[in-house]
């Protein structure tokens, strides 16, 4: 590429940095998410470790220029291991005044602002709530400001390709991407290749966007040469375990994990879902996997979706459904049926901020009570939680293993952050996983529908179509021996005890709880679950580097809890539980182990910052007797 020589020249003048946080922001129609994912791909190819955080509004196309229509994509990348999407951006790309207004407070002091002055018209400034132009009134003093008429420069750059004015202006996200590529010394070729592939039928669009990237990149070079006012940086590759990598989002990893798990169980997959943010993408992903014998069914509502998944499980498929908080609430009666008839069922809960409709596009982990306790009567099931996008693959496989081996519904908790965020993933060898083939019951001799495996207590899975095993099941209490309807008082006690014993007993078939970072006793244990993994781990890492006695424990198995957890927790002086809810795991730990677990709560719809957890730990150290 023609700019490569210039970029080489400037290398010497590049300042080496360990890690950087860049946030792209603009109108929801500005193509911010695409810009972010392109930067992610290029950065991964450059060998940096990274984590991303897409943050978009609930409205599909909010009125242009409004603060509530701002879409953002944050990426944290560096030469060391990156655990979070970053507390505060070092660079803010603002494609309109509203994007600047919404995101400016988050920017680090002295950070860089790249803004499209072409969009800073009086009308847009007013819409965003600015009384005066921030470039003129001194309010951006102290920041490194690159104020450029990106719109005009983009129109100029793409002119030869003959797009309409409207289409041409849409390329301004790629112009800004080109400039950021130059600032961080990134290769433009992967994005050019992607554009050529994406717009194979409309070459003029591909070429215009590539021209915009090149123009933005060239602008950086010229600016550096002429004024030297802009810093350029280089970020060395991170030390990463050798292997083949790709980026993966939580939704992709969950979907692929389910299908991989079904393969290990030797089952066909039937997925039934109903559109809901942020879980719908599971339906989209799986509907493109028919070649793996995956059937997807868009049901008429959440209840029908879980119903169809149960119906499929009854027929001997892996029945799977997915939703988010309010949809899960609708499914609960049917999940109780699956518990009562002891059929395997996977329920993916991509949690979002609530209650009720809440904040559909914002993240929270406030469905732990709903997962563990949220049904009528004594109705235990298995609850698992994924800690990151890539972890979702293994957790989904674990969900399939436990559901099919123990004939039970399993609820897998992810959240809006994990679902949409992407991170590099060392691609596993699927063939190397342990298989757990399901054996349907076919032996007529002595068959009873609720006969159990002595060790796992799982009931026999005899599916319709099997000659000689015709039987009836249902949600009415059934005799522990024959499976026939039974209103007998003692039998109900026996069956309730059996259902509990079966789920509790799963603790013997899951790994002991490990310590993610730190010592196995003494000092403070910071206990987390789900997407708080990154910020907790980084905070503990930073404090341990300063000789602080603090450890990180992160739960994958929420119910039943790992068998050694009580003993492990009792070895620490203090237990701090950061959660994006008002203290749900805290309650469970206190209840189960009578330990003095203390909650650190955040429910702003945004993930924890590392500094928030760090300072909470420090507070506990200072109050230590």
């Amino acid at each position, binding site marked *: 590429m023609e700019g490569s020589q210039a970029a080489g020249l400037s290398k010497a003048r590049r300042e080496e940095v360990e890690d950087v946080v860049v946030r792209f922001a603009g109108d929801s129609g500005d193509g911010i998410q695409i810009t972010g994912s392109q930067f992610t791909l290029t950065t991964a190819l450059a060998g940096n470790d990274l984590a991303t955080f897409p943050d978009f509004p609930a409205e599909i196309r909010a009125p242009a220029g409004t603060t509530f229509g701002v879409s953002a994509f944050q990426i944290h990348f560096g030469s060391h291991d990156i655990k979070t999407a970053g507390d505060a951006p070092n660079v803010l790309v603002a494609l309109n005044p509203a994007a600047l207004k919404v995101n400016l407070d988050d920017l680090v002091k002295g950070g860089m602002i790249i803004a499209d002055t072409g969009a800073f018209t009086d009308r847009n400034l007013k819409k965003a709530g600015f009384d005066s132009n921030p470039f003129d009134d001194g309010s951006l003093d102290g920041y490194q400001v690159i104020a450029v008429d990106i719109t005009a420069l983009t129109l100029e750059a793409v002119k030869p390709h003959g797009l309409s004015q409207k289409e041409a202006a849409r390329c301004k996200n790629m112009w800004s991407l080109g400039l950021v590529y130059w600032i961080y010394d990134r290769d433009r070729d992967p994005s050019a290749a992607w554009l050529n592939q994406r717009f194979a039928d409309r070459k003029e669009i591909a070429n215009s966007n590539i021209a915009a990237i090149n123009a933005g990149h060239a602008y950086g070079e010229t600016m550096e040469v002429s004024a030297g006012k802009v810093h350029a940086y280089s970020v060395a590759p991170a030390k990463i375990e050798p292997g083949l990598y790709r980026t993966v989002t939580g939704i992709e990893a969950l979907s692929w994990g389910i299908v991989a798990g079904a393969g290990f169980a030797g089952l066909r997959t039937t997925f039934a879902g109903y559109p809901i943010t942020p879980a719908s993408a599971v339906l989209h992903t799986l509907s493109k996997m028919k070649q793996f014998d995956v059937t997807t069914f868009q049901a008429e509502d959440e209840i029908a979706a879980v119903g169809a998944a149960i119906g499929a499980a009854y027929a001997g498929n892996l029945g799977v459904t997915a939703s988010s908080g309010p949809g899960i609430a609708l499914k609960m009666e049917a999940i109780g049926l699956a518990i009562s008839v002891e059929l395997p069922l996977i329920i993916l809960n991509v949690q979002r901020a609530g209650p009720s409709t809440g904040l559909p596009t914002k993240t929270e982990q406030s469905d732990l009570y709903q997962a563990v306790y949220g049904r009528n009567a004594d109705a235990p099931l298995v609850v698992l939680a994924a800690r990151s996008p890539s972890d979702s693959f293994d957790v989904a496989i674990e969900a399939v293993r436990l559901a099919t081996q123990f004939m039970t519904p399993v609820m897998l908790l992810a959240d809006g952050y994990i679902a949409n965020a992407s991170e590099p993933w060392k*691609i596993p*060898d699927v063939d190397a996983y342990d298989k757990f083939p399901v054996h349907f019951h076919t032996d007529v001799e002595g068959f009873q529908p609720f006969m159990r495996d002595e060790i796992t207590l799982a009931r026999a899975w005899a599916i319709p179509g099997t000659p000689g095993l015709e039987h009836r099941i249902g949600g009415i209490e059934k005799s522990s021996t024959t499976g026939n309807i039974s209103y007998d008082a003692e039998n109900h006690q026996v069956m309730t005890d059996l259902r509990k014993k079966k789920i509790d007993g799963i603790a013997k078939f899951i790994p002991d709880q490990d310590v993610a970072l730190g010592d196995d006793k003494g000092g403070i244990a910071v206990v987390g679950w789900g997407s708080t993994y990154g910020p907790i781990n980084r905070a503990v890492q930073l404090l341990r580097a300063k000789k602080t006695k603090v450890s990180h424990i992160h739960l994958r198995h929420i119910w039943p809890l790992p068998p050694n957890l009580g003993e492990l927790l009792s070895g620490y002086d203090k237990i701090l539980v950061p959660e994006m809810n008002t203290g749900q795991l805290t309650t469970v730990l206190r209840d189960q182990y009578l330990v003095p677990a203390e909650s650190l709560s955040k429910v702003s719809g945004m993930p924890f910052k590392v500094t928030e957890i760090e300072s909470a730990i420090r507070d506990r150290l200072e109050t230590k007797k």
Partner: protein
Amino acid sequence: MNVTTRPDKLTAKDYASDQEVRWCPGCGDYAIVRAMQTALAEMQAPPEKTVFISGIGCAARFPYYMSTYGFHTIHGRAAAIATGTKIANPELDIWVISGDGDSLSIGGNHLMHVLRRNVDLQYILFNNEIYGLTKGQYSPTSRVGTRSPSTPAGSIDAPVSPTEFAIGCGARFVARGIDTQLKQLPQLFIRAKEHKGASFIEILQNCIVYNDAIFADFTQKSMVEEKQIAVEHGKPLLFGKDRTKGIRLKPGRMEVEVVTVGAGGIEEKDILVHDETNKMMAHLLASMESPEFPVAVGVLYCEPGPTYDEGVYHQLDEAIAAQPKASMNDLLRAGSTWTVE
């Protein structure tokens, strides 16, 4: 409890389970379960491939009394669960058993969608115009003025007609039977089973405890000929003791009327001939209510079309044929990847 060796020819008794039937003595459900056992024996339906799926209500106990596979699920959701079972294993022959409350109140949404999707199963709605299992509240099919524990001054909301609802939802097989039709019911079940797609049958069923004799004006023996019309494809819509009464289109209007052949210049050629593939006619027949009209029984509408489960497997087969050796390892390695040395 299970049949371990199958006799050469199954009789109606072979389709009965060993469970004691717990409906109220005299309940219309007894006749329906017997009719079903008769129909299955006549078809020699393989018990292992036959599945009864029900919701909640008196009718929903039905699966327990059959020796086939059975799933007694939750209120209103049988259609959704049955849809999942059918798409998971299209070889199974599925019968959904439901009532008027189960199908048209709590489960109305699922009934609509199983019919419009045309999932290949049979949906039997036992309509007794009352909530029996919860002790007698009025139901969505109860007539205006129904006095019940929840409507002591009489119900005030208009009822829904199950057959008209089904036709409106896009059902391609709609039939009506009566619990007292011991001869006709098994034949109706056989027609429903033979139809590929969702087959909907409303059975008017007497609740002896909470809504006794609600259909008596046209179901008691003395009224059958005068107050019912058994429709048959290709046959004129004639009824009455001497088969002199008939249904014709009112001249100049899109509605039907009862006429007498031989009176007022009416000839047999003026009488409508039943065409079960005609949706408009099905609407008119479904809407005929006692006492103004005879109640139509038999197959009101039958016009087969593509089924949902066929469509599902068509797409699956195509995808698998296009990528017969799909591997998860390949999928994970598709797209942008990079190697860290």
